[in-house]
């Protein structure tokens, strides 16, 4: 973070930051927006936001959770915009998400990993976020709490509820 304060080293430090976090953030975004092109756009926008806000970044907050917070907000904004554009045809969100998952060239209906992906699409947006951050990114409830501005107790309840629903879906499909 000290490099960001030195103008001559800011670009190099940012490139380093992008290299370090691009893959983690990409998958976090991809799990939300589902399609690669959309994930790429949201990732680009997220890093642009990061660059513009670097001067105001407080070192007392963790860089990791701060990046996730920006990527999460960008993803949610993107999803909202997409929903608004697709109004009538977006009535059954879970079905639309499920179809997007199935459209992937690697999709295999018999593979447990793909069943998990389909199961996650049945969750409401917020529950999906909590589940992804805990299950895939293996974050502590404290970290998730900083990203989503929600109490740890509520997050734990949300995650347990989501995990049970996902398991039930996989067992019955």
């Amino acid at each position, binding site marked *: 973070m000290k490099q960001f304060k030195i103008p001559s080293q800011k670009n190099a430090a940012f490139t380093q930051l992008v290299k370090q976090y691009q893959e983690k953030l990409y998958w976090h975004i991809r799990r939300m927006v589902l399609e690669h092109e959309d994930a790429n756009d949201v990732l680009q926008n997220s890093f642009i936001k990061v660059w513009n806000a670097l001067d105001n970044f407080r070192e007392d907050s963790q860089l990791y959770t701060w990046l996730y917070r920006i990527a999460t907000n960008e993803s949610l904004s993107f999803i909202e915009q997409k929903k608004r554009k697709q109004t009538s045809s977006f009535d059954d969100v879970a079905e639309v998400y499920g179809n997007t998952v199935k459209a992937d060239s690697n999709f295999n209906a018999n593979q447990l990993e*793909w069943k998990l992906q389909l199961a996650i699409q049945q969750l409401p947006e917020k529950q999906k976020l909590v589940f992804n951050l805990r299950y895939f990114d293996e974050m502590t409830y404290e970290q998730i709490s900083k990203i989503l501005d929600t109490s740890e107790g509520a997050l734990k309840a949300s995650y347990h509820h989501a995990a049970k629903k996902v398991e039930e879906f996989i067992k019955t499909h």
Partner: protein
Amino acid sequence: MENKEIIQELEQVAPLLNTIAKKPVQSVPAGYFDHFQVQIAQDNSNIQATGARVVNMNTSRKWYTLVAAAVVIGILVIGGFNLVNQPTISSNPALVINMEQIAKIDINQSVQALSNDAIDEYLKTANALAGPENSLHQYTVDAISETTVAEISDEELQLYLSE
């Protein structure tokens, strides 16, 4: 440490999920992460997403736009002013209808003074203007007289003559 906690937590809530690999399964273009970059602008003041085109705002043309806008506004204002101040019927003495003079006219006397030919001529003109559907051809002066008298009952005629 956290990973162990997550496994134990899932073991109690949804153990099946502990058996699934967490490796991403979705397709990503080959070499995407190797070639991914966020383009930083030369002046270091901002960065551009790859592929986004910078649109140069040509400020030298700005005054043309302002002049064109002023001309359009001028035309609209002058046109509107002329429209509002157009000479109306009430301000043109030749077109003013003098209601006092009209009130003084004795309608019955004026109608009596008209010849049958003049009334027929009026009805013909009215028929031509009204068109075939609304034609008043049956209402020539003679036809009106004959029809009306034939349709009046004797009682009504007696009553009329006694008045």
